[in-house]
């Protein structure tokens, strides 16, 4: 509980920090033209901060829920192909069908995420072992990635690749408040719906038999998690592209705060996910590279080594 408030406090602090960073241009603008300074804050920086919080929180919560459902700390929306499926859905909607309104993109993206998650459960089965889960996720990610490239190659616009590149790598820049809302509202609803399943997911610690004997309908919970995760993650991918590894990392830290309870880790994982993505975005902004890196590159650069460490750490379990 205390750790939860601490996390929340840290999140608010980092949000304020990233709202006013870099401070110099804002200070200069404030001296000259208050209205313009305010416009920069509200139109440019606020959506970016909101999007980072919503997307990070959604990935954290979805990761925690999926890990609890599969009883496997290596499950996450990106490793299981959900984000790639969502990206494919958005690319097909935008470049093949030519709909680029936020709502159309969201629908396409959610449909793609649903398809990927449905395929995962069909391939790996409801009680997926680590190996089948990861292999199925890999196959789905590869397929979705190839289809995304194909869709871009077949797109009528000759600039499709160039155009989609930044978005595909994950980017929070230059989004409007309206676009941020299209990601944030479904994310809030999805996190709330996942949080309601926490006790059922906790009871899965003792296996499906015990969870069912307590009256939890596991088949129904599985469907709910698939649909809700697809909705939340899909909506975020539609606006900000595919961002990896947060859904894997955040729940692992979150479970340390809930003494291992996988279901109750959903909310802390959301807070940690938001904090990590905001932090990564701040790092992108402060990095002296001359050009802004896509945020997905940063999370992958930090997340992939962590994933490797996790695999090495879990080898005993994989080989058992």
């Amino acid at each position, binding site marked *: 509980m205390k750790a939860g408030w601490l996390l929340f406090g840290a999140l608010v602090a980092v949000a304020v920090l990233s709202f006013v960073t870099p401070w110099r241009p804002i200070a200069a603008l404030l001296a000259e033209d208050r209205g313009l300074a305010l416009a920069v804050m509200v139109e440019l920086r606020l959506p970016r901060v909101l999007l980072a919080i919503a997307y990070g929180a959604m990935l954290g919560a979805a990761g925690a829920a999926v890990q609890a459902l599969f009883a496997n700390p290596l499950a996450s929306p990106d490793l299981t192909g959900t984000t790639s499926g969502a990206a494919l859905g958005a690319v097909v909607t935008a470049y093949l069908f030519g709909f680029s309104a936020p709502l159309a993109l969201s629908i396409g993206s959610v449909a793609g995420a649903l398809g990927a998650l449905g395929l995962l459960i069909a391939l790996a089965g409801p009680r997926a072992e680590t190996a089948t889960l990861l292999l199925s996720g890999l196959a789905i990610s590869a397929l979705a990635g190839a289809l995304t490239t194909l869709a871009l190659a077949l797109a009528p616009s000759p600039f499709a690749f160039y155009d989609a590149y930044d978005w595909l790598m994950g980017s929070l820049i230059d989004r409007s408040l309206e676009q941020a809302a299209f990601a944030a509202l479904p994310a809030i609803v999805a996190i709330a719906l996942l949080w309601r399943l926490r006790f059922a997911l906790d009871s899965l*610690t003792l296996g499906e038999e015990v969870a069912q004997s307590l009256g939890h309908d596991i088949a129904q919970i599985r469907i709910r998690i698939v649909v809700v995760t697809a909705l939340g993650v899909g909506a975020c991918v539609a606006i900000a592209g595919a961002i990896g590894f947060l859904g894997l990392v955040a729940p692992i830290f979150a479970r340390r705060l809930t003494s291992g309870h996988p279901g109750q880790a959903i909310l802390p994982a959301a807070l940690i996910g938001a904090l990590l993505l905001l932090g990564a975005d701040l790092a992108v902004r402060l990095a002296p590279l001359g050009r802004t890196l896509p945020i997905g590159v940063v999370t992958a650069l930090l997340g992939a080594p962590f994933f490797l460490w996790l695999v090495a750490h879990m080898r005993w379990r994989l080989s058992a």
Partner: protein
Amino acid sequence: MSLLAAIGLRIPGRLEATSLTIEAGTLTCLIGPNGSGKTSLLHAIAGVGSPEGEVQIDGIDSRRVGPRKRQRLLTFSPASRDIKWPLVARDLIRLGGEDDLAIVVDDLELEQLADRRVDRLSTGERARVLLARALAPQPRLLLLDEPVANLDPLWQLKLMQLLREVAREAGRAVLMASHDLTLAGRFADRLIVMQTGCVVADGGPELLDGKLIGAVFGVERRDGAWWPVPRSPEDPRSSP
């Protein structure tokens, strides 16, 4: 009124339609060879795997109450000792939301284990922690699948004694599946014998001395020990 009244329980392919009542104050053992339907019957009563039929405990339909209330009516502990996440034992026991663990910790001598992580316990220690989880909500009916498997002889006896005490408490009962006919005969008030998904006999511990056990299990009790039933000369299987 019986503590448990189960009507028309059925799991296609595993359990034929079975009706059953259990009186308060009794320890009942389900016995039968592998695959005879003991676990399926426990599943059907506990509501695992959407079984057909109706289960009433003290006149309350256990399928229609929420998790909190349901675990005061019944809890089920499966034969598997697999725990998916490395929780601390005390947190695992408390998973149902119980705060007062003093009684179960005391009864199962878990003082030394309660603050250790379950993935670092031995199979036998984990069995005790899992039993504590099922006991903690003080359910009216305790359903246990092979609770004494993997335990040392002393703990097998201690556990059976504890289960009999629990069963004797007012308004409570224990239904457990076991392969240990000797322990079942010694501690159970009632034996339910199962074969190929059906209840084939139901009675007191004296059932173990009848012909039925030989027919169901292929073993019989001689000089206080269990022996394979000798094949008769007419039995076609005994000729080379």
